[in-house]
């Protein structure tokens, strides 16, 4: 079937990569992009970094200039969410009842920030996912306020660092014993915890939140499970994201179970991004089958959105295309450090420093499982770290470093 109508739901990094890659591949057909926000495609990593720090105005997060967007010949429909899809008729339905026929539909709706169960809605309780979230939080982070960050994942740790740099007293809370451990393991978790403590953050890892205490319609303290009461002027809930798939319920598009290896609630796809006849998914919302065929994994890293978007464009346009997974990459800016990581190590993999030292805060380390390099992570030695990218997936003999 000749594809002449591609409809992309989601106007961020993954959706944009589909559009650009399709045009680069010579696709001259209709290209519709639907976004639930009013903003043109913008980038999310700067939201918890330069935008929150107040260094960048919102416009600086634009992924492409208006001129470059214009060259893509997009039918850009912003400010209206998708509400459903009819896979038999091959029509996408929007919240304003517009029906958009497609040959290929791309689901690139990303994730929504999870809310704390039972938490009250209050003007000083925030999540951070979109540009509006970032600006609302930024505006409340005035000098002297006390911020409690609930969730010490990558996002929570970045916000703690930025707020500290802005002269704000930060408490970082997580039920897990160390920050970022699910992503970087215990050794780097210790390192990150030390980094934050040194900068004055009150790191309360290993204890969960019992409830948010309210007074006069605002939250004024966070009560922890050990009974401690942490005074709060502003609260950020950074406990992860859930795939934005509500609009797909009831449609003939497969969705994963809750467990990570079941796709963590994302759109289940073959490697290459095909979810069903004429339906594809890319980015945070997509759970692609692993090369060994044993699991479906969702990956919420920025580079993954682009990689998968490119692959989906190729899958749509070229039936012979075979996806070759790239080495995963992510980075996190905290204080004056840029932590960078290649690969996808498990939280229990051993971490061995192979260059520099953690104490100097200039290092490269390798993650090992059964003698095989599962990832590499470093700070302050970018060139040396990059050299380790090609070693991911290969055996490492001790002494070879």
């Amino acid at each position, binding site marked *: 079937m000749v594809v002449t109508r591609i409809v992309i739901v989601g106007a961020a990094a993954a959706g944009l*990569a589909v559009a650009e890659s399709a045009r*680069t591949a010579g696709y001259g057909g209709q290209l519709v992009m639907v976004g639930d926000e009013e903003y043109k495609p913008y980038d999310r990593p700067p939201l918890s970094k330069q935008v929150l720090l107040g260094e960048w105005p919102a416009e600086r997060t634009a992924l*492409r*200039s208006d001129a470059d967007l214009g060259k893509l010949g997009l039918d850009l429909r912003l400010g209206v969410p998708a509400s459903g899809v009819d896979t038999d008729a091959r029509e996408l339905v929007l919240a304003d009842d517009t029906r958009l026929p497609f040959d290929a539909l791309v689901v690139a709706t990303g994730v929504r920030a999870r809310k704390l169960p039972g938490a009250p809605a209050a003007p000083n309780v925030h999540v951070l996912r979109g540009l509006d979230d970032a600006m609302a939080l930024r505006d409340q982070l005035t000098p002297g306020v006390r911020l409690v960050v609930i969730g010490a994942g990558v996002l929570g740790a970045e916000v703690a660092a930025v707020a500290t740099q802005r002269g704000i007293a930060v408490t970082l809370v997580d039920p897990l014993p160390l920050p970022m451990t699910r992503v970087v393991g215990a050794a780097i978790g210790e390192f990150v915890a030390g980094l934050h403590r040194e900068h004055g953050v009150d790191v309360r890892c290993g204890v969960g939140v019992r409830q948010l205490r309210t007074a006069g319609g605002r939250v004024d303290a966070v009560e922890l499970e050990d009974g401690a009461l942490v005074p709060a002027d502003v609260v950020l809930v950074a406990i992860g994201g859930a795939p934005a798939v509500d609009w797909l319920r009831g449609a003939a598009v497969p969705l994963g179970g809750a467990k990570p290896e079941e796709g963590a609630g994302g759109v289940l796809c073959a490697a290459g991004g095909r979810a069903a006849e004429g339906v594809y998914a890319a980015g945070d919302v997509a759970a692609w089958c692993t090369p060994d065929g044993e699991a479906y994994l969702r990956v919420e890293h920025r580079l993954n959105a*682009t990689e998968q978007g490119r692959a989906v464009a190729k899958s749509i346009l070229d039936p012979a295309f075979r996806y070759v997974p790239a080495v995963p990459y992510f980075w996190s800016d905290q204080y004056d450090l840029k932590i*960078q990581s290649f690969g996808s190590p498990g939280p229990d993999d051993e971490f061995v420093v192979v260059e520099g030292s953690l104490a100097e805060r200039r290092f490269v380390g390798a993650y090992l499982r059964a003698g095989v390099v599962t990832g590499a992570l470093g700070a302050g030695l*970018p*060139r040396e770290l*990059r050299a380790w*990218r090609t070693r991911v997936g290969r055996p490492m003999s001790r002494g070879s470093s």
Partner: protein
Amino acid sequence: MKVVVDEEKCCAGGQCVLASPDVFDQRDEDGVVVLLNANPPLELLEGVREAALICPAAAITVEEG
């Protein structure tokens, strides 16, 4: 073809160097992109386009013409 990089946006991942090593490099100290050739020849276009598309910080712009 004209290549423009935004050092302030660069996230130092080095993906551009992997895509087009004749045009991009990284600074030793912080990994920020170094543009080796702002007007690369046309035969490098594919790699440069790839670098711009893949850059996870949208820090590379290519003006073709």
